[in-house]
């Protein structure tokens, strides 16, 4: 009994020694070592402690976890390959395998999950201390798998306000029409600077991001864009050209049809005289007439 106790205590304090030993074994066998090899080398090591040591090395990024026909393999990790880890199902299987081997007490907390949005909707697990690549996370518009529509709306409104006030200032300046129009334009660089200085975004936005927001304003019919040639050195020019945006007024008022209840009616196609829904008994019309 006393022997066992002593052994345990020695082993616990030698956790780092265990890790170092495993690392040495890995270096000895560059193609990878199995669990069995470690066990043979340190027979007194309990599976739990072995697992803990391996966990630590894996989390530190010093060991690679692989699988071959006979079982799990641990290999010294190559530093360069640690940059972009797009997880795959293989890794997950290995994870569970190792946890199983470590017995019931195998902790689930040894790899901290970072769920990452991936185009194919697969859950990707990565080691916590790595920064996921932009294409995997979806860019500035996604945070924690959710498309940030409120954020996009806020940016949309702010950009529009900026362009609108610029156009108003130009209009009120009462100068010649050409000067008025030119001063109502803002380059995408100017808008980007304004938004960055507003500080409403937690994430850094690039000029491309701002341009996608400005494009949605074009599709809203509130803004128009022209492209002009610019010298290669001027701030904000890309490939010798710059995009200019300016706020515009709508060209017609809401058309006559939509000022009637029929223009907005959800059951328009079902309505006919003598039917259940007809102009004579239409409740939308009654409401609209009494308005």
């Amino acid at each position, binding site marked *: 009994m006393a022997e066992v106790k002593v052994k345990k205590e020695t082993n616990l304090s030698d956790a780092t020694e265990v890790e170092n030993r495993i690392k040495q074994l890995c270096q000895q066998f560059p193609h990878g070592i199995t669990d069995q090899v470690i066990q043979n080398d340190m027979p007194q090591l309990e599976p739990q402690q072995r697992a803990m040591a391996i966990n630590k090395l894996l989390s530190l990024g010093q060991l690679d976890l692989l699988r071959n026909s006979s079982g799990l393999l641990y290999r010294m990790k190559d530093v360069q390959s640690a940059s972009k880890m797009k997880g795959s199902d293989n890794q997950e299987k290995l994870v569970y395998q190792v946890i199983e081997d470590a017995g019931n007490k195998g902790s689930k907390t040894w790899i901290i999950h970072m769920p990452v949005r991936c185009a194919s909707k697969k859950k990707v697990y990565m080691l916590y201390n790595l920064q996921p690549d932009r294409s995997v996370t979806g860019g500035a518009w996604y945070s924690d798998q959710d498309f940030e529509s409120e954020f996009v709306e806020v940016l949309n409104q702010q950009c529009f306000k900026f362009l609108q006030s610029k156009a108003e200032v130009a209009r009120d300046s009462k100068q010649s029409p050409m000067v008025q129009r030119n001063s109502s334009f803002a380059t995408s660089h100017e808008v980007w600077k304004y938004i960055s200085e507003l500080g409403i975004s937690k994430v850094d936005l690039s000029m491309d991001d701002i341009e996608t927001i400005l494009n949605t304003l074009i599709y809203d019919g509130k803004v128009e864009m022209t492209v002009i040639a610019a010298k290669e050195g001027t701030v904000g020019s890309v490939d010798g050209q710059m995009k200019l945006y300016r706020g515009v007024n709508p060209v*017609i008022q809401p*058309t*006559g049809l939509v000022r009637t209840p029929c*223009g907005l009616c959800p059951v328009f196609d079902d309505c006919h005289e003598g039917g259940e829904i007809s102009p004579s008994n239409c409740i939308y019309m009654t409401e*609209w*007439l009494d308005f």
Partner: protein
Amino acid sequence: MTAQEVRLCGLLLREHFGEVVEKVGTHLLKGGAQNLRTIIHETGISLDLVKKSLCVLVQHGACVFRSGRKGAGSPTEYQTCCDRILRILRYPRYIYTAKTLYGDTGELIIEELLQRGHMTMSGTIKTVADRLTQNMEEGRSMDYSEVSSAFFRLVETHFLQRCPPLAGAEPKDSATPAAPAPPGTPAAPVGVWNMLTHGDEGICWQVNFERFHLHFRDQAIISAVANKLDQTSSEIVRTMLRMSEVTTSPTATCTKPLSANEIFRSLPTSYNIPRPILDQYLTLLIDDPMEFVGKAGESGGGMYVVNMHRALANLARATLESVVQERFGSRSARIFRLLLRKRHLEQKQVEDFAMIPAKEAKDMLYTLLSQNLVQLQEIPKTPDYAPSRTFYLYTVNQLPTARMLLQNCYKTVANLVERRLFESKESKRLLEKSQRIEAILASLQASGAEPEQLTEVEEMITAPEKQQLEALRLHINKLDSAENQVDETIFLLESYINSTASTS
């Protein structure tokens, strides 16, 4: 002739000419060209009434007749077209335009001619002068020369035109309603008016709807320029359009080129802008993405044209976008505009460009698709059209969508008219009562009754009944003005569709 058009024409005929004319008119619309016997047989109306109805329709230009298709000697055939009947909807707008351009005199001339269909000049002038005299103070009367000068001006600017001579076949049928002498004209002139009626019979005048339409189109373009740019630019465009009023054919896509010098000289004197500033405005008009004005050359300081077809197409597109925005929300409108710009897009691209979450974008696209505002184009990668190996692209086709919306407009107007008739019918008893009481009041006042008697009669209508009448009056006015508003949309869409049809 769609079902909606026929329904609307029937309602308009009923309101303006009565049920018999409505029956005959709709029968002709649905059945094409028919001779008198067929009409009588199929509608079951007596010969006399059918003759009178056809009279009315021909008088107003809604029905044309020609010799039968089976060769000379076969009975005359009558044919109606719904275009002319649908114009009835626009009568208030014509009258209002005449008022703004030519004052009360012009307004009354146009009103008389619209009511009568066609009339001789002398008849029109006399009737209008009499009406104006009635509304003037005692002892004064309207000068005929004033009315006739207004008439001349209307003819000069082509708002009135002569009726085409009735060159029909020799009427074998005794029931042919050729009526060169329209009803309503005094058969024998009286008084001072003698000299002007000589040689006037048989020369009838009618309202030239096409000219009014050109005027409305110009107005629409000018107000669009004013909305998008500013007042001065719209004045420049107005000047250009005024200069090309008589030189441009109605179906042309753009006006004849006008030099900047000419434009400068023709600007109204209140707009005292220097020449270089005018050039700047013209350059801005050209650069505008809406392409209202185009440059056609460099001589004379620059030759400029107004692109009417392009402007109409842009206005029609703005109308479609407005309908989608009001009906489905601004995000659906964003998707709609995006598809109009980019022509064909996959679902994923729509989500990315519009920056709308995938689920909502899908929902909106399917709603628009179910309402036929957006179409799906399949492009297969393999010959077997397997869904997993096919591109599905969303697209918007402006012309078919405009046609569909036009039919919706017709249905809407018909709904509004039906509702108006229904509301009047519901309160028929009340309306009749109030009319009787008004008649009693008028006769009592004329015979010099005492105030107590008048108040006694007035009190026959109770307060809640008065309220009901007031509410009814408001409803009817609202429905009327709504009809006019929808007619504006109808005009834009019809102009665009006709303009596209004539250019393609």
